[in-house]
């Protein structure tokens, strides 16, 4: 009788252990990660431009869990104008958008860490304030998305994937300056797929 109980317990334990380990109750998990980079373009005109670099490793959700990530893919990108931004050369701590700033073009260009162009777009309106309450979602072409995802797939080889964003306003025609200041932000939304635990 004791043997029956022992074998029964062993069988039950094995069944439970196997069912827990073979039944993947949790599938791969997707986390949407926004990469937000502010850019302050300042100068006396007629053209002002600034470059900023941002990297995936700057974000804890990525860097803390990189061993569990199965894929990194592109979801969306936008530009928006900030009324104020952090000054990278203090003092003062903040710099402010030049009131009434407008020009011929507002251009947003993003290049990946390998120096390949991700996209370059002139925004529909060259009035900076038009994008304060209404960010502009930049539509990438199919080929641009493919190239970007190919770059993102390199995280398995080089975990520190970076991008360089350039914000430019050409032929400034309005605004309380010089100097003129365009405070903007480029936001890149990525999807991180995590392996099931």
């Amino acid at each position, binding site marked *: 009788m004791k043997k029956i109980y022992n074998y029964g317990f062993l069988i039950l334990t094995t069944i439970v252990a196997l069912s827990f380990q073979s*039944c993947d*109750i*949790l599938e791969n*998990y997707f986390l949407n990660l*926004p990469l937000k980079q502010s850019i302050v373009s300042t100068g006396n005109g007629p053209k002002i431009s600034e470059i900023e670099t941002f990297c995936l490793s700057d974000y804890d*959700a990525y860097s803390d*869990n990189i061993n569990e990530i199965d894929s990194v893919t592109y979801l969306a990108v936008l530009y928006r104008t900030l009324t104020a931004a952090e000054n990278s050369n203090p003092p003062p701590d903040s710099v402010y958008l030049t009131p009434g700033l407008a020009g011929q073009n507002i251009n947003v260009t993003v290049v990946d860490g390998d120096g390949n162009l991700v996209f370059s777009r002139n925004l529909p309106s060259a009035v900076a304030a038009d994008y304060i309450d209404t960010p502009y979602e930049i539509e990438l072409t199919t080929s641009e998305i493919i190239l970007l995802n190919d770059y993102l797939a390199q995280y398995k080889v080089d975990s520190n994937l970076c991008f360089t964003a350039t914000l430019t306003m050409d032929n400034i025609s309005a605004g309380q300056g010089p100097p003129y200041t365009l405070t903007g932000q480029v936001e890149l939304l990525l999807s991180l797929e995590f392996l099931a635990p």
Partner: protein
Amino acid sequence: MKKKIFLFLFILSFQFNTSFGQVGLGIFGLAPDDAGNYSQPMATFLGTYFNSGAYYSADLPEAFQFKFSIIGMYTFVPDGQTTFTPNPEVSGYNSTGSTATFVGGNGSYQIGPGGFLAYPGGFNVSSVPSGIYQAAGSIYGTELMLRYFPTITFSDVKSGFWGIGLKHDFSQLLPSLPFNIALQILYNSFSLDYVGDDPTSYINIESKNFAVNVQGSKTFSEMFIIYGGLQYENSSMDLSYYFRDPNELYPSIANTVQDTSVDGDNVFRFTAGGAIQLMPVVFNLDFNITSMFTITGGISLQI
């Protein structure tokens, strides 16, 4: 024998630790109201889990009886639990549409004056196997049931649970009834706590689950039992977590510990099942119609 029991209990606890620890990854990026909605299926599941498997017979003898039961469960997650309506409470962002709960699929995103508001996805959970064990002693038609697993730490996560149940067989008061009838009250508590060194990974879950049921059973040939019951239950979960604010839309509460409470979707349950007594071992199987349909099967040592 003690080693075997501990091994079995360890396997059960390991599965819970691993699964629930991953949920924090999504919760860390949500403001408190959305975090509660995102994790509500967890509250519902814990209520369903802890309020299951508590009986297979309403008959309690006058003489002393002891039971030890190991119960397996299989819970189905309905589609209605996989999404929720976002409530960002930020000007310029909508409380419309849907996004995934932690058992759902992909998370959604919105664009507003503050840029992207991105929601986490879920784990695409459609069903959950689980198990539990319990011990019960009864005399004079009254039973005390206990569930307990000591708090253990595994991979920076500490968790444990305990439960208590009290049941009384009222059959003697209703001798005309052709079956046994009993009233049972249950209370179960579960906790999970991050105890690692990274303050930005802090999460604490406290789950409290209550149920009261009226159950009936009839035994045939002293071997076959048919049983069923109607149960009222509720579950609540207190959630405390480090809010990372990845969307940069909540500057006043970003990078602080936030608290929220969420009630599970459990209210009523109907149970129907059968058992076979091959004394001193009893095998039972029942079906539970509740917010998450659950099948339970158990093996009990009854002496």
